[in-house]
Every structure is written in C-alpha cells, then in structure tokens.
C-alpha cells in the first residue's frame, strides 16, 4: 500500500471531477487530498466518500490566485513535511503548468497525461498516449520520491471507491515564497462552455463549414445537447475559428462521451486528437472520407441540411 497525496484544484468552490476519478482508481491505497484555499463541509464529505483520509487545506498570503511559483512553493513545503510515495493531480491547464515545476523541486519524475494505471503492490504503472494518441506506451517512474503523476480528465471514468476515508479536514499554514510571475489580470473567455478537454459532448466543424459565421448552426446544436464546439486544423488555419477550439495533434486531445464531426475529412492528425471519444458521429458529403473509418454512426450528406435536422431531432428527444 502506498501513501498518496491527490492535489485538487477548485472550480467555483467545487473539486474538479478528475479528482474523484483519481480517488476512485486509488482504492486500496492510503490517500490524502490537498488543496489551496478552502472548501465546504459538503465537498469534504464527497472527498471522504471517495476515499480521502485527510483533507489538507493550504492557506497563506499570496495564494488567493494561482501562480506557478507560489503554488509550487506552498505544496513543496507541505509535501516535504509528510511522507508521500506519490502525488497525483489532474492534467488540466493548471496541472500541466504546476506539476513539472513541483516535481523538479524534489528532482523527481512526473508521468504526465496518464489515461489508465494500476498500483499493484503500491507501485504505480501507467498507460499514456504518445504522438497525440497514435500509439500507447507503458509508463513507470524511477528516481527520488515522491513520484508525480498527472491524469487526463475524462479518461479513467468514475469508479466508486468501495472504502470511504475519514475525511479529516485540517488547515495548513502555507508559504508562497517568492513569486516573480504573478497574474495581473484575467481576461474572461467569450464562451461560458466547459473546455474541450473536459467536455462530455463535442461538436466539431471542419473545412466544409466554409466560414466563421456558419459555425452558428453548430452552436445551435451544441446549445441543445450541452456540447462544447471545436474545430479542425483546416478550419482554424482558414480563420473560421480560434486555435483554442482546435482538436487534433497540434490542438487539443479530447475524450468526450459523444463527438459529432461535421464536415471534417479526418486527417491523421485530427483522428489522433479525438479517437478515444466513446461514441463518434460523422457527417460528411464524401462517403470515402477517412473520418468514417472511426465513426460509430456515419451520415453521408451535406452538413448544412443535416445539422439543423439533427438539432430539431435532439430537441424532440430531450424535450427542449
């Protein structure tokens, strides 16, 4: 059995879903949770139900906002005061930025963007995609402890932990240390949708969308089914959509439950970024488009007529 710390980010006072995915998968280990700031008793109860023994709330000056140095300093000091074999976190925007710096404070290794793992005998062995998911490899850690692991959101799935933890909450005096790179300002995104990497449903437009305005029909569909809208590299490079929306090898790798590709031909680099989606629907006028080789349900037809019908059918089905 290993001593494991799971670092959780908070979003509007809630722990991120990836934290619960990790906790469920760590069943059988001795697992604590650390977070920066404060959370409600209700959230602590959720962590306890999923196996958290202790919930450490790190509090201190200059930790109200994320900074790579402040968070890394505070967490490193706390982790040094304990005896953890492993530190897990989500491969989110923050996790990807923070965990490499934090692990290096221990001259330790980080297995990043892991999509599955085992803890046989308290030893981590993971699987992670490389080359944007064109292949998979086994990943193991060596060298000084603790070892660090970041987990891709939506990859493990929610497996309930059969053993609840005590969920003993405590405040920890944390020290942010010197912060040279601090956030001066946050420019909010125009979209309020969940990020592509965490979305449960994604609707993506390709080159066949022809222009940015036509994405409206995808937005209409997305609104009905609660989806986030993405774009292929061809659509982004043609200026139809910003890079933040790009799915594929030079964009985001996604793994939603449902992926609807509209007018996307299915270049190798695009398929690499979305192939682990659980169910794939493709709409394309070309019956030989490569996207159909990955689609569970392919519709050969013009997206400009099919998508509005799809929106209407979903409305009927979902009663919206």
């Amino acid at each position, binding site marked *: 059995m290993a001593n494991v710390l799971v670092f959780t980010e908070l979003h509007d006072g809630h722990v991120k879903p990836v934290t619960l995915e990790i906790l469920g998968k760590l069943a059988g280990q001795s697992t604590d949770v650390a977070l920066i700031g404060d959370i409600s008793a209700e959230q602590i109860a959720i962590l306890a139900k999923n196996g958290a023994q202790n919930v450490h709330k790190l509090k201190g000056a200059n930790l109200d906002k994320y900074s790579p140095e402040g968070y890394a300093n505070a967490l490193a000091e706390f982790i040094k005061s304990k005896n953890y074999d492993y530190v897990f976190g989500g491969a989110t925007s923050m996790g990807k930025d923070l965990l490499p710096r934090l692990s290096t404070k221990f001259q330790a290794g980080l297995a990043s963007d892991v999509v599955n793992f085992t803890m046989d005998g308290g030893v981590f062995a993971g699987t992670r995609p490389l080359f944007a998911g064109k292949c998979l490899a086994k990943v193991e850690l060596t060298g000084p402890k603790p070892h660090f692991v970041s987990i891709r959101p939506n990859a493990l799935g929610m497996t309930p932990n059969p053993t609840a933890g005590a969920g003993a909450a405590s405040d920890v005096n944390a020290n942010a240390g010197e912060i040279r790179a601090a956030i001066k300002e946050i*420019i909010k995104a125009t979209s309020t949708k969940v990020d592509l990497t965490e979305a449960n449903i994604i609707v993506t437009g390709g080159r066949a969308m022809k222009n940015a305005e036509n994405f409206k029909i995808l937005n209409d569909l997305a609104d009905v089914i609660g989806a986030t809208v993405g774009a292929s590299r061809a659509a982004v490079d043609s200026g139809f959509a910003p*890079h933040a929306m790009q799915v594929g090898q030079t964009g985001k790798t996604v793994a939603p439950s449902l992926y609807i590709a509209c007018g996307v031909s299915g270049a190798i680099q695009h398929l690499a970024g979305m192939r682990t989606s659980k169910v794939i629907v493709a709409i394309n006028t070309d019956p030989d488009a490569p996207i159909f080789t990955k689609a569970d349900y392919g519709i050969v037809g013009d997206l400009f007529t099919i998508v509005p019908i799809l929106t209407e059918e979903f409305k009927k089905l979902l009663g919206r």
Partner: protein
Amino acid sequence: MNIFVCVKQVPDTETKIIPTSDGSFIETASIKWIMNPYDEYAVEQALLIKTTIPEANVTVVRVGSVKDTEALRTAMAMGADEASHVAAGDNLDSYSIAKALKGAIEKTGRKPDIILAGKQAIDDDCLQVPQILAEMFNLPSVSVIVGFEMNGTTVKVKREVEGGALEVYEIATPVVLACNKGLNTPRYASLPGIMKAKKKPLAQLSLADVGVTDADRRVKYSGFKLPPEKPAGKKFDATDAAKQKDVVAQVVGLLRTEAKVL
C-alpha cells in the same frame, strides 16, 4: 541580450506511427522529421524580439538524435544566430532533456535573459520541459503563451487556460516562456537565409558534455503499441433529401437506445 530557443525535432504530423517489434519505441527509419510545430512560434518570437533589439543573440538548442539537423538548420535559416546540438536518443524523458538543455545553455557561457520553447512537443506530448528547465535555472516561467509584449526588461504575456480565458502576467527578465499557436505567424526561411544558415556556428555536444547520465532518467517507457481499433460503425446515406429526416431520426434514436450517450 541573450535569447535561447529550445527546439525539438519530431515526426511530421501526417506520420503513421509504427511501434518497434519489441515495443521499446517506434520505427524511426522512414520518418520525415520536422521542427516541432509549437517551437516555430518560439523561434519566431525570438526573431521578433531581435528586430527591436538588433544586438540580441538568438541561440537555438536541441537535444535529440543525429539523423539530421533539420530543426536547427531551419531555425538558423529563419534568422537565429547560432545553434547547439546535444546528441541523444529520441526517447529521452523530460527531466533528462531539460537537464541537457540547461547544460548546453550554460556551455555557451552566456547568461539567458529569455528562454523560449514550444508549449509541448508533439511526439511525447509531456508538456514538461519548459517548466522543469525554469525550476532548474530557478527562473519564473509562463506556459501556453499566446501574447507577448516587451518593455525594457519587463515582459507582459498572456497565458491561455481552459475554455480560452487568458491570464495576463508581467514579469521581469530573465524568464522562461512556453509558446502556443496564435502567438505569432512563423516566417518561412528565405533562400538567402538557407544559404547563410549553412555557415552559422553549430556546436556539437554529447550528453556527457552537458553532465547527463542514465541516472537522470525519471520516466521509463516500454510496451509501445497501437491503440485498439474500433469495430466498423454504421453508415447511413442521407444524400437523398426525401430520406434525410428519417436517417437523422434513426441515428438520434440509436444514440439513445444503442450507444446510450443521451
């Protein structure tokens, strides 16, 4: 001002990846190598800084196989002044690569003011090296930047986070910055640039020269394999306008009853 740009050489995005028979890595013999696409934004940003500070030196640094030096020659053809290449395998882990980059930068004898890199290499997709390098140098860092301004010794950068929101940072140099698509539009190397690049200095180093050994490895990979193929799905013809509504209704029905995703 000393600007360093870390670049990696990776398989072209259209490459079909084939694991080796023993699963220890991938077949590399027939791969077309390119500069990691995100590193192009880092090189371009360095060159943009150099246009406003002409005395700035731009050195590109790469750790990786010796099969060809495409990435470094491309960067110098774009306008970088010189390059360092640390010869190593193509499957080093992030910690070893960062340590080797640090060693190579120190070997130049120049203190870095700005270190630029792509936010991720599209081969191992780890997103670790720039942040590890920053910590090893004890420097601040900002990753996934899509905006850059410079005023004297202060840089103002925009970092893209989930959902497309932007965090704005103001930092005094020295600093490590990891660049994302959207930061700038990388230039193409001109023909005179390509000719000039051939005469620019390219330092050749070994891992031993930069103090990296097998003991620096932190992440071990094995069992490279292709992901499981999905069985063929169902395809419906909706080219006939009269059938479209029925076909779509059928697919929506299947999404609920068969795929159970709604």
